[in-house]
């Protein structure tokens, strides 16, 4: 920890005020959404922060109006499956690049290029590809698309974690006669667990939150994700804000649970990959 320089009491007070304002800014919309989910329709129109007569009715109504529960289940399934695909594709490649020195300059460049390209570029071609292989409108198809989509992010996160493993450890295993694959699985993988957890969580969140591909590639109840479900609310003429807030909040719970319980992994992963 850096020792902060001595500060005048006034500047400390001012800094706390700014930080308090920032935190207020960050939590206010979430709290207002939560509060709105407990409001009756005419109460919503008052525009007050707290509900005057709190009601739980919006939750069962929203879950009945739209299949919120099955959408959240689809989203969770797709995001976990896609993170597994991403890791299976990316961990060995990152290891080979960092430790075996394979395609050391090409791989970073092609991953970076495909990250910079806006995903809307891939939308139309992948739509037809998925249609061709009959994976359109399926959980597996969407998970496959996300699994590939998140490769660049996973690669950049994992790279710094693999680099952090001292070279001597792998070399000792090779000298002992272990094969490269065996070294990866038995030696490197256990050391990479924190990095893999962080990468998996970030990939899960990216997939869970995605809308563009999901809205074009899922139509039926068996595959439609919660972000698509919430986007459909937007098209309705008469939006019931209380129900919309209730469905939104229910859909936000899975990612917030991850944020609260895995805060350290997430912040560790985010800072590892991007700045260093």
């Amino acid at each position, binding site marked *: 920890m850096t020792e902060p320089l001595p500060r005048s009491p006034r500047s400390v007070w001012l800094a706390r005020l700014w*930080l308090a304002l920032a935190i207020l800014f960050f939590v206010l919309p979430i709290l207002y959404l939560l509060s709105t989910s407990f409001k009756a329709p005419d109460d919503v129109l008052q*525009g007050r922060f707290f509900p005057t007569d709190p009601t739980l009715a919006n939750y069962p109504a929203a879950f009945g109006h739209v299949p919120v529960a099955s959408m959240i289940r689809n989203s969770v399934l797709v995001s976990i499956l896609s993170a597994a695909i991403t890791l299976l594709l990316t961990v060995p490649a990152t290891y080979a690049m960092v430790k075996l020195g*394979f395609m050391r300059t090409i791989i970073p460049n092609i991953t970076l290029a495909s990250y910079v390209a806006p995903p809307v570029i891939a939308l139309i071609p992948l739509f037809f590809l998925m249609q061709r292989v009959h994976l359109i409108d399926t959980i597996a198809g969407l998970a496959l698309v996300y699994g590939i989509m998140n490769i660049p992010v996973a690669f950049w996160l994992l790279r710094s974690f693999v680099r952090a493993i001292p070279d001597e450890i792998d070399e000792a295993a090779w000298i002992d006669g272990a094969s490269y694959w065996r070294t990866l699985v038995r030696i490197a993988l256990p050391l990479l667990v924190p990095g893999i957890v962080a990468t998996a969580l970030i990939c899960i969140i990216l997939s869970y939150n995605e809308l563009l591909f999901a809205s074009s590639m899922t139509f039926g109840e068996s595959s439609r994700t919660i972000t698509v479900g*919430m986007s459909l609310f937007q098209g309705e003429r008469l939006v019931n804000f209380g129900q919309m807030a209730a469905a939104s909040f229910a859909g936000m719970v899975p990612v917030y649970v991850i944020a609260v319980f895995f805060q350290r992994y997430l912040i560790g992963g985010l800072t590892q990959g991007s700045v260093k």
Partner: protein
Amino acid sequence: MERSRNSRLKIASIAMVVPMVVGLAIFAAYPLVYLVALAFSRSDLGNRFQKFVGLDNFTWAFEGTIFGTSLFNSVWFALAASAIQVGLGLFIAYLLHSYVRQGRLLRTLILLPLMTPPIMVGIAWKLMLNPSGGWLNGMLLRFGAIDQPISFFGDRTLAFPAIMLADTWQWMPLVVILCFAALQSVPEDVYEAAAVDGAYPRRTFWKVTLPIIAPALVAVYLLRLVMAFKTFDLIYALTQGGPGNATTIATFEIWRTAMREFDVGLAAAQTLLFAIVVTVVTLPVVMLFNHLEKRT
């Protein structure tokens, strides 16, 4: 012996890399080839490659559609939103770094906007800013600051700033986390030397800290810039590109051309043009980053 080791190394390397490269080829290389083919053809969603039309789709994108406007909107949205977020994010990170010792709860709270699905970010801010039942309008009305509720997303001049507000809410936390890490990576003796020289904290920040973290800051700006060009969900949730075309950005326009008007050939041409614009805008920032990193 040495030879067999080399060939084993090569085989293992290839086997480890191939799955990822195939994945990237499916996601990046194949779409690019496919798009180029589509862009020069008349194609709709149900019936592709009807006929070769040369550059017709490209010229039509500018002459017959609002695509030029949407490109302009994308560029200025990405540049401005990223600049605001890096400026404010650095400020908050600096305060956290200098004044807060135990920040666990703070960090968790900051993470929440970042984790929120962008479509729900749109919904939350729609609730905040709505003319009927919005918190801000309710407040302003009750304090007598306004007589009529303001329709933030229905007003030509206010719609984009309102979207930037929601975008900043979501992404400034990422900037804070990254800037905080950059501030923490500044070696301690740098501060000690500055303190011995009697430099004020503020002077130390501008003269000592900022030059050291400049490459990291440019990297964060670049990351935000790239992400901002991909924005889609917020526009979808908040304005659908309106009022008029005031908030139509390129991603939304491409999506609408392909998925609402089914003109896939035109959408492909638009996509290629958009990719060129993104490259042209981000390239100077990449060059600045390389320059700064070489200097230090």
